[in-house]
């Protein structure tokens, strides 16, 4: 009995913090989402129902945020995963300078995304008296420059995805490189003795062996990309609706706080919709990976 008590005492701080800041909020967010016309100041509401969900789903800002988020997910997840795989394969086939390259590639992981986002903004932004560095490159190659920060939608989406990929690559390269390093070298030796081409070795040995890692990265990549927010703020400023570049998470915070804030009910409904989307996609991913992945 005394032993039991002592164990709970050791666990008490963790349970207390988790209870107040995780379990209670989890229940509470569902309650909020169902309380219609919640008034923050008076802490009262007019009814219980799906009114918040209805409001959110018919809000043009939310629809825009939904569209932006899906585009970011669909573009950045396959591109960053594929590119990381390519770079990891390159890294694992060289010896000299390998450490140096690895260190450089990991650098974006330890940088403040808000701060470096500002650098990207400057690289991509035209002002009256200065041209974006990137446009210099484009005109040199024979194209016409465009303002990527305040210009057309596709240009903003491009820089958005480019920056997102830049930010998420270090993690993926690192994980894939260590997965490649853990593949048993005997398989390669045997394949080479049999005279298999390197393409065949990749498709028949390497990829199947690292497929659990690849699927892990795809799943976490989807989850991370659906929660995109800080990178957008870094590039386009805090008023993402004005830039037309808001995301679902951005919408949640806008509803909660700031000039458009004070509606925890709408925020809760939007957050639950996001959770439902992420949950569904993760479930589909897991089902697919169960059919495809070969666990050794």
């Amino acid at each position: 009995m005394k032993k039991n008590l002592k164990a709970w005492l050791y666990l008490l701080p963790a349970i207390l913090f988790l209870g107040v800041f995780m379990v209670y909020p989890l229940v509470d967010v569902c309650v909020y989402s169902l309380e219609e016309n919640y008034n923050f100041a008076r802490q009262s509401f007019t009814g219980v129902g799906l009114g918040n969900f209805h409001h959110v789903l018919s809000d043009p800002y939310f629809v825009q945020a939904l569209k932006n988020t899906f585009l970011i997910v669909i573009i950045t997840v396959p591109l960053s995963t594929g590119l990381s795989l390519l770079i990891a394969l390159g890294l694992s086939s060289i010896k000299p300078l390998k450490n140096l390259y690895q260190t450089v590639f990991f650098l974006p992981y330890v940088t403040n995304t808000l701060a470096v986002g500002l650098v990207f903004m400057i690289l991509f932004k035209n002002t009256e008296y200065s041209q974006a560095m990137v446009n210099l490159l484009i005109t040199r190659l024979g194209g016409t420059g465009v303002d990527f920060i305040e210009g057309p939608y596709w240009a903003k989406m491009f820089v958005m995805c480019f920056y997102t990929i830049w930010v998420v690559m270090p993690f993926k390269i690192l994980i894939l490189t260590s997965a490649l390093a853990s593949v048993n070298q005997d398989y390669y030796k045997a394949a080479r003795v049999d005279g298999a081409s390197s393409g065949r070795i990749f498709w028949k040995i390497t990829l199947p062996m690292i497929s659990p890692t690849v699927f892990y990265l795809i799943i976490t990549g989807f989850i991370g990309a659906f929660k995109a927010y800080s990178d957008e703020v870094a590039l386009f400023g805090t008023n993402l609706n004005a830039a037309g570049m808001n995301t679902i998470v951005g919408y949640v915070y806008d509803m909660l706080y700031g000039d458009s804030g004070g509606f925890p009910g709408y925020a809760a409904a939007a957050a639950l919709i996001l959770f439902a989307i992420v949950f569904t996609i993760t479930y589909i991913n897991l089902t697919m990976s169960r059919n495809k992945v070969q666990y050794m």
Partner: protein
Amino acid sequence: MEMSKKGSRLSKGLIYFLLTVWAVVVLFPFYWMILTSLKDFRVYNTEYIPRFFTANPTLQNYSDAFTSVPLGRYLLNTVIFTAATTGLMMVVIVPAAYAFARLEFKGRNLVFALFLSLMMIPAELVIITNYVTIVNWNMRNTYLGMILPSVTSIFYIYLLKENFEAIPDELYSAAKVDGTSDLKYLLKVMVPISQPTIVTIVILKVIECWNSYVWPRLITYDPNYFLVSNGIQEIRENGFGKENIPAMMAAVVVISIPLIVLFLFFRKKIMAGVSRGGTKG
């Protein structure tokens, strides 16, 4: 044989070329921010087409960054926030991990399973109520309000528990025979032995704290409590005047340096730690 050797040299060359291209993509923004931060403001403004070098580097922008905006204040706030959050987190997670790893009690597996299932809850879902909680506790614009919701990490409890469990049972029995208390055993034996893991956890948490943006932004509107992320956003929108890009870049460099130095010192530890289970964001 001759053919394939030539072929492999060619493909080696191609691999190095591609890796170098990506290295340039990664490093160029860093080069650009340092370069711009050293450019004289007037010179910068005359460059319609930005130049890749500057003839007269100046440190003026750095002194501007500290004098015309409260960058020092932001840095100090971030250091306080990071140290307090990380310290408090260790106080919470070390005993919890010890309880799961070494203490026998009823419902241990059930509680641990509940903990693990909480790992799936996205922060976005609970942040709404946490915001209301902190507002109701009158903790906006306080360090405590920023710190409290981020002092537990189930993942780090899990990581530490695994580590504690790997320490041989005999040590524990021997300590018990000697009459050592659990707390003393934890602090004098377990913690020192697990030092590598603890250092990794501390470093990862420090990186997370240094870069945290969303929660501190929700909970503070008084610039006296801004952290660097929020500070840089404030500088961008209301700081030097929108036009003084070189001074902005100087601030960006100052904010980026601490973590880059930390990374260069603990490169192996950080990369090993992240590949064991860190994620971005």
